[in-house]
Structures are given as C-alpha cells and as structure tokens.
C-alpha cells in the first residue's frame, strides 16, 4: 500500500504531466473544433517546437527561444494550411490522411537536419535540479512548467472568451455558414486558427524538451495522448481538454503506484470507459467525429 507522501507526490506529478498533455491537446482541439480537421501533424509540430528550442536556446536564451520557436512552428502551420484547405467540407478522412502524410514527411526532415541520434537539452539554470518538500524531492523544472502551462491556458481562455477574435472563432466552430453570412472572411479565420493551433503545439514542445529529451519520433508520443485527451474531454470543449489532460496525467501516475505495467495503456482504458458512458466525451459537443 503506497504511503501518503508517495500518493501526494504521484498526484502532484500527475497534475503537472496532465497540464502538459492538456496544453498539447488544446491546439489539436482548436483545429478539430473550428475547422473539423483531424490534424495528425500536431505531434510532429510539437517535436519541431522542441528541436527549434534545442537549436535556438544556446544562441538566444530560454525566454526568447520560448517565444520564437512557436512562432516559427505557427508559420509552418500556416504553410501546411495552404494544402489542408483543399479538404474542407469533404470527408474528414482526407484531412487526416493529408496531415498524417505531412507528419511523416516532417519527421523525416527532422532526421535530415538533426540526425536520428537522441538529443538532450538541460532545464534552464534558474529552475534546474530538485526541490525538497520535506517528504519527497520533486523537480523544480516541472513546477515551473506547470506554472507556465497554467498561464498559457489562462491566456488562451482569455483570448477565446474575452476578445472579439475569440468570439468569431467560437462562432466559426458553431456555425460557419452564419459567420460567412455576417461578412467575416472564413478563409482568413481558418488560416489564423490553424496557425494558432500549430503554435500551441510548438509551445509545449519547447517546455517538454528538457523533460523528455529529443528524438525524431517524439511527435508520436505527443499526438496519441492529445487524441485521447480530446476524446475524453470532448471535442469542442475548452475545459474538456483541460479536464481530459489532468485525468490522463493523474490516472497514469496512480497506475504506476499499483500496476506499473499498465501505465502506458491506462489512458486508453480510461478513454474506452468514458466513451462507453458518454460517447461525446465528458464535456463534448456534436462534432465531425459523430
């Protein structure tokens, strides 16, 4: 039976990792909800964010790299969107296949530029090393990462809820025809959302890099949890994505305490249970996935 200190540490750690998953899922969910595109390249763009940080950080420092890497990834997203727009209104499978192909190509390009060898990047010096809670050591960097994730989530929420652009985006998700009828350029909107969604993939890439180290296939390890989180939390729901992320993180941590071998599949078990009870996910709305 695990002790209370262990339980609390696993809970804390689960929430921290869960916040990271939620952040990754957010961008994915935005694109899925607004544009009804299943963006399979989301994971590899997460990887690109990490690799850009790896290259830029020694040159310009942590904070500038954190700002610039997602911007570059966002631009990559905009370019990708030029191809993806051909699939709008058609079977969502087309978008999925296109972005899947893009994901494979982008992963190969990572190998071409940075090689297949694993890379390591250290946590920035001001948050390196452990912090001691009396009963357990924990990683300073993870706490920092959690704080950053919470800040970003709040910023995205503020953008969606409190700005006119956010309102337009949400309207576009709900009823794109009406948005067009109101004179808003749907094409520009969709391009912008795609860029925003992909930039939101790059950011967790930058902050997860010191945690999980870099390798070309790290995108795959990000896309699957993102997908699962969105299905658990529900498509189109902002708080669903956050909740889904936290659930996945905590469930994985708890499973390590009792049955470590199931830790990798526990998120899929959780997803299966939730979809059986509520097919739309916990807070989901009607979407193309139906």
């Amino acid at each position, binding site marked *: 039976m695990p002790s209370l200190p262990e339980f609390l540490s696993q809970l804390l750690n689960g929430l921290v990792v869960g916040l990271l998953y939620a952040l990754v899922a957010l961008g994915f969910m935005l694109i899925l909800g607004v544009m009804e595109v299943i963006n399979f390249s989301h994971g590899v763009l997460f990887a690109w964010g990490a690799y850009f940080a790896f290259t830029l950080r020694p040159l310009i420092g942590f904070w500038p790299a954190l700002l610039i890497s997602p911007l570059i990834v966002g631009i990559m997203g905009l370019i990708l969107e030029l191809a993806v727009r051909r699939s709008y209104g058609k079977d969502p499978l087309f978008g999925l296949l296109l972005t899947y192909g893009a994901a494979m190509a982008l992963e190969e390009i990572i190998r071409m530029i940075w090689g297949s*060898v694993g890379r390591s990047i250290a946590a920035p010096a001001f948050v390196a*090393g452990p912090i001691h809670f009396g009963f*357990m*050591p924990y990683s300073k*960097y993870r706490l920092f990462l959690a704080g950053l994730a919470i800040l970003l989530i709040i910023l995205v929420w503020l953008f969606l809820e409190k700005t006119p652009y956010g309102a337009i985006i949400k309207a576009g998700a709900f009823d794109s025809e009406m948005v067009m009828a109101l004179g808003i350029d749907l094409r520009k909107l969709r391009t912008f959302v795609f860029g925003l969604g992909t930039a939101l993939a790059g950011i967790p890439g930058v902050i997860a890099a010191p945690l999980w180290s870099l*390798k070309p296939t790290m995108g795959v390890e990000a896309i699957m949890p993102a997908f699962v989180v969105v299905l658990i939390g529900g498509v189109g729901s902002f708080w669903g994505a956050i909740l889904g992320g936290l659930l996945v993180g905590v469930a994985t*941590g708890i499973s390590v305490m009792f049955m470590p*071998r199931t830790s990798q599949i526990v998120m899929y078990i959780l997803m299966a249970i939730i979809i059986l009870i509520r097919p739309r996910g916990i807070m989901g709305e009607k979407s193309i996935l139906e």
Partner: protein
Amino acid sequence: MEGKSGEKISRRSFLKYGAAVTVGAVGGISVGGWSLVRGEAKKPILIGITSDASGNYADSGAAERRGMFMAIEEFNAKGGVLGRKVEYKFEDTETDPSAASRKAKRLIERERVDFLIGGLSSGCANAISEVAQRAGIIYFNTNSSSDSVTNENCHRINFAVDANNHMFSHAVGPWVVKNLGKKWYFVTHDYTWGKSGTADYRKILRAEGGEEIGEVLIPLGTRDFSAHLIKILAAKPEVVMTTVAGADLTALLEQVHEFGADKKTQFCFTLRDYPDVWAVGPDKNIGVFGITWYHKLDLPGVKDFVARYQKRFPDAPIPIPENVCYNGYIGMRELLRAVQRAGTPQSHAVIKALEGWTFADNMRHHPTTIRDFDHCFMQTMYIARGKPKEKMADKTDLYEIIGIVKPEDAAIKKQDCKCKMEPYESTPVYWLK
C-alpha cells in the same frame, strides 16, 4: 510502329537503336559470361548486416555499424578474404523482433548474403537467430546481452560477441552488495533482456544475503519516469539496480538528475552502452555499472584503434570508438578471420574454425576465447563508475574503471548452462558457391 508523338518510327532510327541494344546485350552477356568462366574468385563475400537504424537502439546501431565498416575496410585493404572483396548489405531491424525476422529472411533469400551479423535488442537477436538456424547461415550477435540467446535459446550458428547479463551481474553484483548496500530496488526494461538482467542480479543478491524491496517494469519507449521515480524513492532503497538501455536510459538519467534521485540512493546499471550516456553529458553520468570495453584502457592496440576510428569517421556523432562500436569491429574481424582460417565460407567449416578459437589482440586485459559449448566470446569484464567532471581528462572520458574481472569468473559455468546446440548433422550447410 508509332512513336509517342504519333509519328511512325523511321527505319533509320529503328536500325540505330536496334544496333545499340544488340551491342549492349552482346557486351553484357560476354562480360557476364567471362566472369562466370573466371569463377568464384571474382564474386565478393557478401555480409548481411542486421542492425537498428530506428527505434530505441538507433544510436547504438549506428555505432556498431561503424565498427563493422572499419573491420571490412581493413580486410579489403589487405586483399579481402580468400582473395575475395568483402561487401555488405544492411537492413534496419527497427529495434523490433518481427521486423528483424523479416529483414533477416530478406537478406538470406533475396540478397543472398554469406553471413549475418549485428544485433542490439535481444528480442531482435533471438528472432534473427531462429531464422538463421533454419537456413544454416552463421549469425554473429554483436551487441545484445540477454542470457537466453546463448543459454536455452542457443543455436549452432549463433555466436555472441558481447558479454551477457550473467557475466555483467556476476562481475558487478558482488562488488555492489559489498560496497553500496544490501537493500535493492529493481528497475527492469520490460522485455527479454531487462528481465534476464534482473533475474541474474536477484540470484546474486540472494546469494550475498541482500534484500529485494521492490521491482518496477518499464515498457520499451517510456518517456516519463517521474511516477516510477517517485515510487522508487518512497521505498527508500540503498541501491537501485537498473537494467534499462537505449533512448529510454537516456531519458531515465535525465530525470534521475532532475529529481536529484541519485543523491538519495545509489543507482547501478547492469551495463552501460556509451552512446546512451554520451547523449546526456557528464552532469547526468551517474552510477556504477558494468562495461566490456573503454577507449581509455591502457593496453596495446587501443590508442591505434581510437586513432584509426577518428581518421575514418571524423564527423561521427560520437568522437571515439566505444563498447558498442568495439563489439561490431571485433565481431566482424573475427568472423572474417575465421573464414580465412577455414579456407572457405562454407558454414560448418567456419563454425569449426570459430569454436575454441582464442585471440589475444583484443585490446583487453585477458585473451578472448570463443567457447565451444555456447559460442560466447569470453570477454574481460570491467566495473566502472561515472567519472566526476573534475577528473575528466577530456570530454570523452566519462568512465572511471574501478574493477577488472576475468571472463571465467563472470561467465556461466558449463554445468549450469542449459544450452543444447543442434548437432552438425541437423544444421543445414550454408554455402553460396
């Protein structure tokens, strides 16, 4: 006859092209026939390299191939083997046993290679070994370390270059119990190699009167060890005996450092492949572990080998040859030497030339013998520790050797070995004439 643009092909151009094709065909047939007449002497010896270029062991795969290429080039520079040039065909086994099986079959049936060599993941090595035995082709397992490959799953055609978990655990285990602590927690890579390592260490721990306080299994490809580390630290072990390798080990070392776990307990590793540590750098190079070779050993041949490597691979991601590369080199070299000794690439003759062979130019403290009953290369074992930064002679000096163990003291004894190799009569003869 109509050409693409709808014009008829003129008789002139037909004659022109027809003549060219005929000359080409006649020339090709005559050259081919000439080489047929010249016979086997022209045909190169083709080595099938089954190595990981993707997956958990991709970096180590590249390292072992560098060693193999060096050995091949050295032989070719001296005229090849039996007067024949040595060439190779490489297939990526993807750190996945089913891919390894497929690629090995392809090399045998489609590419028609004379020998198979290369292996990091024990799962892959086992799979390749099965395929090889059915065809009768010799397989050199250069870098995998699970015991079963030379124990209950041994085959007549299989040769293991790297030390196995039995050797690592018997070299390192007793030292760790005496010097670091008796309360152990096991971290096991969840596949054949990891489990065999933990099983071996468990036996040693029990024999030395120690106590096992827990085990955690790590699936291949685990990225986040935070939950596992929390669980391990909560149990308060004196020693964490870890059998994890590849990219997963790199991530584990990162996170051990991140949590400061190495200050709370002693991390030990069954073995350490240099490429995994090179990726994390000297700050996270913690623990005590077993290794089979180090580029700073003060022995004849080592400095020269390092210099040859650096000349041949000036841009390699790892600037010095390390244990994985060494095994690739020695494995390839001894295979080719055996073919030379046997006078033929015929498999039974080469196997007989390998069994019982001893060589001293192995850049280690004790000569290496290829044992006849299990086909293990008897390697000198080294106990090493991550070198503190202040003591490093240069950026590649990551290991501090703290013990040297004779191969016979670490290897499994014949009476305990469950290896029952197929007799020669039931092993197909493999010989591509």
